[in-house]
């Protein structure tokens, strides 16, 4: 499959190809309004790409932190449509980095594939990541992604083995490397073999290679940046945000809470 010759919005918006910081937040956690502000705060904190999660009832690729964030967001009535609608609000307030929508496949099916891609395009969302769609099941998604100029982000894992090459060669936007087997969440130690795995991935990939799953300390961030083009940080960011849950919900307390969030995140990634 050849890459589209037209530059996608993702590529246009991505400012650099190295040293990327890709935070993950859950739309609607702790509130839709807070999510919009958090996106901007993350941009200020140095985020290069925003991964925006859509809450799902059965997030089987996620650890407890993200599950709980999804649970909170669902209780506020968040859903795929409303997640999408948050992005124009972020843009209008100055968000310039590419946004990747992270959603499980079932909400996508209910939404309708064509409708979804159309809405992504219309709402200035640059990429889509579906964690329960492996390469083999992604044909239809890829067609729509291509048609609507949205990047489909792929994941690759240490045990993808023979499939690493295929996945890496077909990757668009950036390639999400799972640092170790398991679900999202913090880890004390990251896999030892990660460097050779990342080297292999990078040798096949024409897009930036970012590492995710379990990165939660400044030390890990630096280590991973040595081997890859960037880090994806999810659970740790959700935890930081959740530390200021009540203040972020409150409109008046929010600005000072956002400052504290920014400070913690800068310390984590700088």
């Amino acid at each position, binding site marked *: 499959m050849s890459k589209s010759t037209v530059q996608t919005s993702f590529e246009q918006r991505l400012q650099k190809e190295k040293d990327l910081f890709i935070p993950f937040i859950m739309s609607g956690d702790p509130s839709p309004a807070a999510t919009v502000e958090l996106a901007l705060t993350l941009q200020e904190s140095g985020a290069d790409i925003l991964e925006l999660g859509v809450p*799902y*009832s*059965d*997030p*089987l*690729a*996620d*650890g*407890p932190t993200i*599950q709980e964030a999804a*649970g909170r967001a*669902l209780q506020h009535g968040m*859903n*795929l*449509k409303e997640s999408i609608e948050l992005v124009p609000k972020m843009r209008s307030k100055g968000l310039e980095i590419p946004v990747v929508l992270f959603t*499980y*496949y*079932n*909400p*996508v*099916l*209910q*939404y309708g594939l064509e409708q979804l891609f159309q809405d992504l395009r219309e709402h200035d969302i640059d990429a889509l990541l579906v*964690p*329960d*769609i*492996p*390469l*083999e*099941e992604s044909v239809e998604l890829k067609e729509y992604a291509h048609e609507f100029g949205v990047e489909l982000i*792929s*994941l*690759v*894992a240490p*045990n*993808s*083995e023979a*499939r690493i090459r295929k*996945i890496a060669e077909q990757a668009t936007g950036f390639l999400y490397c*799972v640092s*170790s*087997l*398991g*679900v999202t969440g913090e880890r004390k130690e990251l896999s030892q073999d990660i460097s050779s795995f990342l080297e292999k991935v990078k040798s096949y990939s024409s897009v930036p290679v970012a590492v995710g799953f379990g990165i939660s300390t400044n030390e890990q961030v630096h280590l991973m940046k040595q081997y890859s083009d960037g880090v994806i940080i999810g659970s740790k960011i959700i935890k930081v945000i959740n530390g200021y849950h009540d203040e972020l919900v409150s409109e008046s307390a929010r600005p000072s809470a956002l400052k504290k969030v920014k400070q913690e995140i800068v310390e984590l990634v700088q």
Partner: protein
Amino acid sequence: MSVTYPDSRGRFGEYGGQFVPETLMAPLKEIDESLQAAMEDPSFIEAYHQALKDYSGRPTSFTYADQLSEYLGGAKIYLKREDLNHTGAHKLNNALGQALLAKRMGKEKIIAETGAGQHGVASATVAAKLGLESKVFMGEKDIERQQLNVFRMKLLGAEVIPVSSGNKTLKDATNEAIRFWVANCEDHYYLIGSVVGPHPYPKMVRDFQRVIGDETKDQILAEQGSLPNRIYACVGGGSNAIGMFYPFLEDEVELVGVEAAGKGVDTPEHAATITKGSDGIIHGSKTYLMQDEHGQITEPYSISAGLDYPGIGPEHAYLHASKRVRYESVTDDEALDALQLLSRKEGIIPAIESAHALAQAFKEVKDMDANQSIVINVSGRGDKDMSTIMNVLQEGE
């Protein structure tokens, strides 16, 4: 038997597939390949059938329900007695097959999910028998409701892992088992309890359960020299039903799958996936499921823990779409009535799950002819349900 789906991608028509995190693709491939090799290895097939016979008590009986047939009138009623399996339900057929496969694959640890505890007990049982370590994931709510089965699993040496996410029931236990597997797939084998999950599970579980239908075919032919007119089975995930139906798919036999209508399909409290659900993805497979307009999976309800599942095996979705199998649903109350009728007339206390199949059959059999016959799959025994039934019937007094 020329019905050869699923295809190599695990698709039954448009259903099935492998909608899983990338990390699971490797272990699924490993299982798929090992399964194919095993199924072509006569010594594996022999070991599986030997274990069914020497350990689980197969072939299970085929009982002519004379009292009941006379009482209801209409067609002759035969019962396939999966309740007579070791541990009390058809679940062991599959657990045994998969555990043998796991062992052949060199895995020494298995994981399983369970709701009411039947599949958990079956898994713990085969793990003990084959010298494997076992972990059973179970929602905290179910652990509380099913203390005896939890104790049985522990006696069998299993570690029961409480699941506190989501609604703390079967769906969540399954999610959690999958999560654990993702992280530990190198040395753990995930032993799924029904014809659900990503390819090759729906196919594998079917192939380990088809012994039900294969035996039934031999038995009814021996009994009356002809096939039955209709066959009934309850459908939770759908493993006992597909096990019974599969060998009859190409025959002129009407097949009826019976789902749990809980308090009624017009209430929010039911588990009638086919009757009321829609296309979607659950636990790695494209199939029917119960969900809201946003694609969030909803909590099912049934008095029978084994049918209390929001999805259904993809092959059933296909058999529904292709109209080969008729799917009906039966309420808690109807199932309880059927349970009591079978107990009184035949001395067989069925599982509440199985009572759903019985209830639907009892409704329909009266309109059939005396020279016709039906088979109902009694998927399990009711012992596990006694306290539930006791509470319900005593409330009703």
